[in-house]
């Protein structure tokens, strides 16, 4: 079996000093070698692993024929954001996990090939795009993250007049404010959204649905269906003493300052960010890795991840954990914060932790972390970033009492149709809970768009 091609990366010494992408993407030669490895299975197990059902063997075959434009069309028929998905999808748990080659050796590098095709296509500027003029019913999409963008693209392709409402200054949601430049360049987010606009989707930024316009206002403005994809925009805190000290950030705030407000270009960009020399990030998911690696690039000398379980249970993608380790992020495993200690001026100085051991599996199926008595110790820190997860932003349900939610504030939808308690209002992505990846949210957007189409035809 031919060896799986891997993307070259910027060296860790170099990349910790810049915000450029870590992985370089396949060259044409690498892409061809990798495409040749695909067995073109008849039953296409990889496609079953893809939440948006990209016809994977078909596009890989078109890569082999060197028809990258056709390969791009093949992907885009199912996936409106290929350059983004090629970079941030957990392929190792999805398409690549199903690849037959993976049973005995290494699976085809589907993600890297998808990224290659998307990047080739955008390099090929000659292609003239024509804006669609859609004439179908008006549909409002609330929130312009992965689920909203996908639903918008699918509905625009079906001929609906789609308006995408975004509360922040630019569309993209978590792709814009959350995922850092070195993992997902913002120019790529902008470009993919431009493609969606070319389908006829109108973007209205600086409009907070629930406040600027209510659901009722949208009906009055002639929208016939509404999709809510407002994401997981509510930071969780630990509720530990000292959490409101200066120098303690939620990952949402730290990443929003760095990404959306470009604090890494301070003082040219006016939004400041505090980093200091020693940074501790609490949590071990992708957002924790993003926060730690951003802090490093902003000049921190020592960055550690504090996590209460062991490396095996870390929820981040393996690739991101490896990148963090290469960049000398210190993984402080089996450690749980107990207190944040500040100085007289109200600035964080130390993070007190307790050592943990693993016990029997808990309700999540993972070993339960148990504190070891009297094992408390402190780490000197200038900044602490809390990255233990986010909940659904409660603003829209709060302003729309008829919109039913769970006790965790997730919007309740019908399992099959994605329709909420309000007829004609659909929802998907992190706001309905559970998904937590870009591609799963896109899958929701796709399914909801199908339901909206059906609803509007009835």
């Amino acid at each position, binding site marked *: 079996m031919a060896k799986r091609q891997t993307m070259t990366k910027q060296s860790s010494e170099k990349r910790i000093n810049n915000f450029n992408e870590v992985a370089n993407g396949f060259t044409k030669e690498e892409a061809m070698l990798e495409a040749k490895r695909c067995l073109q299975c008849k039953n296409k197990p990889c496609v079953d692993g893809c939440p948006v059902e990209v016809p994977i063997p078909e596009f890989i075959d078109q890569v082999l024929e060197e028809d990258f434009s056709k390969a791009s069309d093949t992907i885009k028929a199912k996936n409106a954001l290929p350059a983004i998905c090629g970079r941030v999808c957990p392929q190792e748990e999805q398409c690549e996990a199903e690849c037959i080659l993976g049973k005995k050796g290494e699976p085809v590098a589907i993600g890297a090939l998808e990224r290659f095709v998307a990047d080739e296509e955008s390099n090929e500027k000659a292609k003239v795009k024509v804006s669609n003029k859609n004439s179908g019913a008006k549909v409002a999409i609330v929130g312009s993250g992965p689920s909203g963008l996908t639903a918008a693209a699918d509905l625009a392709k079906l001929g609906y007049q789609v308006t995408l409402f975004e509360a922040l200054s630019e569309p993209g949601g978590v792709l814009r404010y959350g995922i850092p430049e070195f993992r997902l360049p913002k120019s790529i987010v902008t470009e993919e959204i431009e493609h969606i606009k070319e389908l006829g989707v109108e973007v209205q930024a600086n409009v907070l649905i629930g406040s600027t316009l209510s659901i009722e206002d949208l009906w009055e403005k002639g929208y016939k269906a509404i999709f809510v994809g407002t994401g997981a925009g509510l930071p969780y805190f630990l509720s530990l003493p000292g959490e409101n000290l200066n120098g303690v950030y939620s990952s949402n705030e730290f990443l929003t*300052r760095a990404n959306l407000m470009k604090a890494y270009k301070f003082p040219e960009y006016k939004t400041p960010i505090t980093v200091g020399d020693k940074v501790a990030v609490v949590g071990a998911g992708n957002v924790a890795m993003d926060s730690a690696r951003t802090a490093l690039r902003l000049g921190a000398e020592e960055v550690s991840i504090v996590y209460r379980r062991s490396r095996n249970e870390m929820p981040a993608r393996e690739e991101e954990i490896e990148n963090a380790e290469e960049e000398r992020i210190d993984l402080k495993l089996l450690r749980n914060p107990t207190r944040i200690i500040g100085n007289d001026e109200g600035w964080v100085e130390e993070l007190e932790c307790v050592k943990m051991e693993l016990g029997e599996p808990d309700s999540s199926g993972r070993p339960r972390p148990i504190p070891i008595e009297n094992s408390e110790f402190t780490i000197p820190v200038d900044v602490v970033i809390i990255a233990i997860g986010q909940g659904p932003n409660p603003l829209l349900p709060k302003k729309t009492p008829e919109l039913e939610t769970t006790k965790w504030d997730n919007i309740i939808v019908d399992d099959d149709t994605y329709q909420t308690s309000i007829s004609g209002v659909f929802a998907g992505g992190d706001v309905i809970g559970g998904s937590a990846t870009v591609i799963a949210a896109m899958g929701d957007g796709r399914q909801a768009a199908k339901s909206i189409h059906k609803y509007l035809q009835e």
Partner: protein
Amino acid sequence: MAKILDKRDLAPEIDLFTIDAPLVAQKAQPGHFVIVRASETGERIPLTIVDYNRDEGTIDLVIQAVGCSTIELCNLEQGDEFLDLLGPLGEPIEIKEIGTVVCVAGGLGVAPVYPKAKYLKEAGNKIISIVGAQTEEMLIMKDEMEEVSDEIYFATDDGTLGEKGFVTNILDSLLDERDEVDEVVAVGPAVMMKAACEVTTEYDIDTIVSLNPIMIDGTGMCGGCRVTVDGERLFACVDGPAFDGHAVDFEELMMRQSHYEDEEEEAEHKCNLDREVE
């Protein structure tokens, strides 16, 4: 984009802007705020909605040029546009008939106090206002406050207008003399609101304050504006900005407001350099 329809000087480096923002005007209520950004490189600045006109589709904002980003906003003129304007944000204050309300405003706090006083007055309340500033020249919206107040008192640091000293001194003697006060609204620098709440605690009078912690998105997403109220962690942007003043941890608020003092100095230095180069 939000167009500046009118701009007028209120005091040195303090301007009142009338902005074309029909959607925001339609939904605005006293207590609401907006977030504006002058340009691509600017910060997101939260500003109270001082007044609104639903028919004209306009809102009024007061901006004091104190840092790089507010200087940039104040350099914009009639006909120019703010790049971004988002709102209305926050929870409005409840406007109902209470009886007699004392409205205390310190410095730029007049901007958030004015709409509360105006609409409380319209709802049939008696309004006694106490307005303070460093000097008479720095005291803004005097005419507007007089118009919505049944009684009004002034305090300045140098005694150029009204009593020399703090608004809280006037508040103290007023509450000492009068029994009819049902509620106090106090907005200004955190230290002033804290002092006002200490006075009203003594007289056991409900006090509403409006907090201005550092904020970014204004939609509850970043948690930067977290404040402790009655021991609970709340977000000023979505749970406030108005809170029961007697339950607010002002020490923590003041500490958190100082977070970026060093960076602000650095940014200001660059601002000045840039201006000199121009």
